[in-house]
């Protein structure tokens, strides 16, 4: 099962390596990772998607708490969340296939952000499932490249996370 964990960490050199190293040496497979500054100075938010069962998730969370530079950990298991990801997808597209691609893009409320004779680049924002689905729909046309940000999450309502 895929779980998403948020860690609020002190923005020091090496903190990303520390967290990534922790996951690697305990055999937790990172599916995606996003790190960025937060509105609070000196603190960064790491949003990490991992594959594993409940026990694995529990161990990951506990081990993360042990890192000195980790201030908070949210496992989102019981949370109602807003979850988003951004994907850029470069698809083969010629004059004949472009209209259909444009149709699909419009259905997904995505955007075409680059166009050339042989291809278009599509930008899609939404839940990770939505980005997955768009990629599936575009696959028959020939996907040249994809770049995804990985999932980020904020808890709904006033609670922190």
């Amino acid at each position, binding site marked *: 099962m895929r779980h998403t964990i948020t860690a609020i*960490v*002190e923005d020091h*050199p*090496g903190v990303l*390596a*520390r967290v990534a*190293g*922790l996951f690697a*040496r305990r055999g937790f497979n990172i599916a995606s990772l996003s790190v960025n500054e937060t509105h609070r100075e000196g603190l960064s938010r790491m949003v990490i998607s991992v594959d594993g069962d409940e026990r694995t998730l*529990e*161990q990951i969370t*506990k*081990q993360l*708490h*042990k*890192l*000195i*530079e*980790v*201030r908070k950990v949210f496992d989102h298991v019981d949370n109602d969340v807003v979850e988003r990801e951004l994907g850029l997808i470069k698809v083969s597209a010629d004059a004949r296939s472009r209209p259909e691609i444009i149709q699909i893009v419009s259905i997904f409320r995505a955007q075409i952000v680059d166009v050339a004779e042989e291809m278009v680049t599509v930008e899609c924002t939404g839940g990770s499932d939505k980005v997955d689905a768009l990629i599936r729909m575009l696959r028959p046309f020939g996907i040249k490249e994809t770049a995804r940000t990985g999932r980020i999450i904020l808890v709904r309502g006033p609670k922190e996370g």
Partner: protein
Amino acid sequence: MRTTGAKALVAELNSQGMHVAFGIPGGVLIPLFDELLAAEKRGDLHTILVRHEQGAAHMADGFARASGRVGLCIATSGPGATNLVTGIATAYMDSVPILALTGQVRTASIGTDAFQEADIFGITMPIVKHNYLVKSAADVPQILVNALHIASTGRPGPVLVDLPMDVATGEFEYVAPTGPDLPGYRPTVKGNARTIRRAAEVIAQAKRPLLYLGGGVILSNASDQARQLAEKLNLPTFTTLLGKGAFPETHTLALGMAGMHGCAYANLAVAECDLLIALGARFDDRITGNLAKFAPTAGVVHIDVDPAEIGKNVPVTVPIVGDCKSVLQDLIPLLKARAEDEWNRRCQELKETYPLRYEHSDEVIMPQLVVEQLYRATKGDAIVVTGVGQHQMWSAQYYRCTRPRQFLSSGGLGTMGYALPAAIGAQVACPDALVLAIDGDGSFQMNSQELATAVQEHLPVKVAILNNGYLGMVRQWQDMFYDKRYSGVDLAASPDFVKLAEAYGAVGLRAERPEEVPEVIEKALKVEDRPCVMDFRVAREANVMPMIPAGKSVDEMRIE
């Protein structure tokens, strides 16, 4: 006040109570060693020159285990720092508080593959509790305070501080730190009152409870409380390798050490108990064997300062996160006294039916005999330090400990070569104590160069080598499971350890027959101003018994 990184470092070490360092200088450390010399002259900090940085790390470790204080080792950049790695990993696995200070190339050179540069910060990340690369001299005082706080609190562990040369010489305006500045670090000391009450209920209902004491009891200085608990409830009690001494092994309730090479009666008691009260222990595989078959009928009350250990290997009935001593102080008053009962009698019966045994010989020195005689001659009162292997297990089985910080052994990492340097560290921490290293001929050769350190510092450590000419534990496995296909275990061409000791200026003694053993020990105990090596030529193919092979359970325990 204007000061430099190096001056501030030494001053801060001093004000934090660090008065000994073990290390070796190098190019980038010369500014620091200049300050260490000044500190030496002021009588503030004694720096002990070792012969291999691994020795320095084990010395800091032995110092810490024997005293409860943070041990300090110092190494230069590049190879000096990398030579500390095994010692740091050893301390990490056994939760030992040490501070490793490494020199580093100038900040501007970092990442350029400079001379003697190594990314020790990156290399040690997985094996330290935390580490720091100091970027500016002004950061030194706070980082030191933080580092020592991290090393010595919560679940202790090694902390590394990497100090670039220009940071050591860099000048700044000193501002005294007011205390640790670690907003993300809040170890739990006091246990949750509700779970403690629940634990008391569960314990009261148990018919066959067993007390399981790990190294955490010693780290928490909780052995008095552990004993109170055991005696109030008449609990049969066993320890792990690292918990030896947490409870007196001469006590009627004591079941000795359990686990792979633990006493058979301890393992059998675990299989029959209905409640395991685990204190400061982590259910390591050397204790549990096959997890699916471990303590099949037992509930578990697990008390530990590290929440990540609770429920990691074994499902827990009542988890309590907190410092062992504090939790016991809250828990014991809630418990009603228990009289001795059927269960106590059963454990006593197991003890009498399955005692530790070995085949005696009049012709050949049995290794177990050496440990027994050392135990008697030292009145069970020495600080015992071991290497890793068969000799380590025999030492654990036959040297009964009665107080904490008496048995120093690399349990988690299992580091050969630990004994001599750790014994040196222990002797420095406890100058009036009798420090006895029991080592193997293989383990001893890994850090024998530290005899020079012991001689230079006039440290009367005793080293008893159980010399069988083999890497004994591996040979035993090849004997038991690979049809005696001995591969890579024959230690031929070992030096004459007596001559080696004398070459260093230490005392060397040898016994080749059983009747020679007592006199060698007696002579060794009289040496007061230098180390003494005792070369005991023991039976070559003795096996450590009992044994629960890896991944197996107590029903497959072999008694001989």
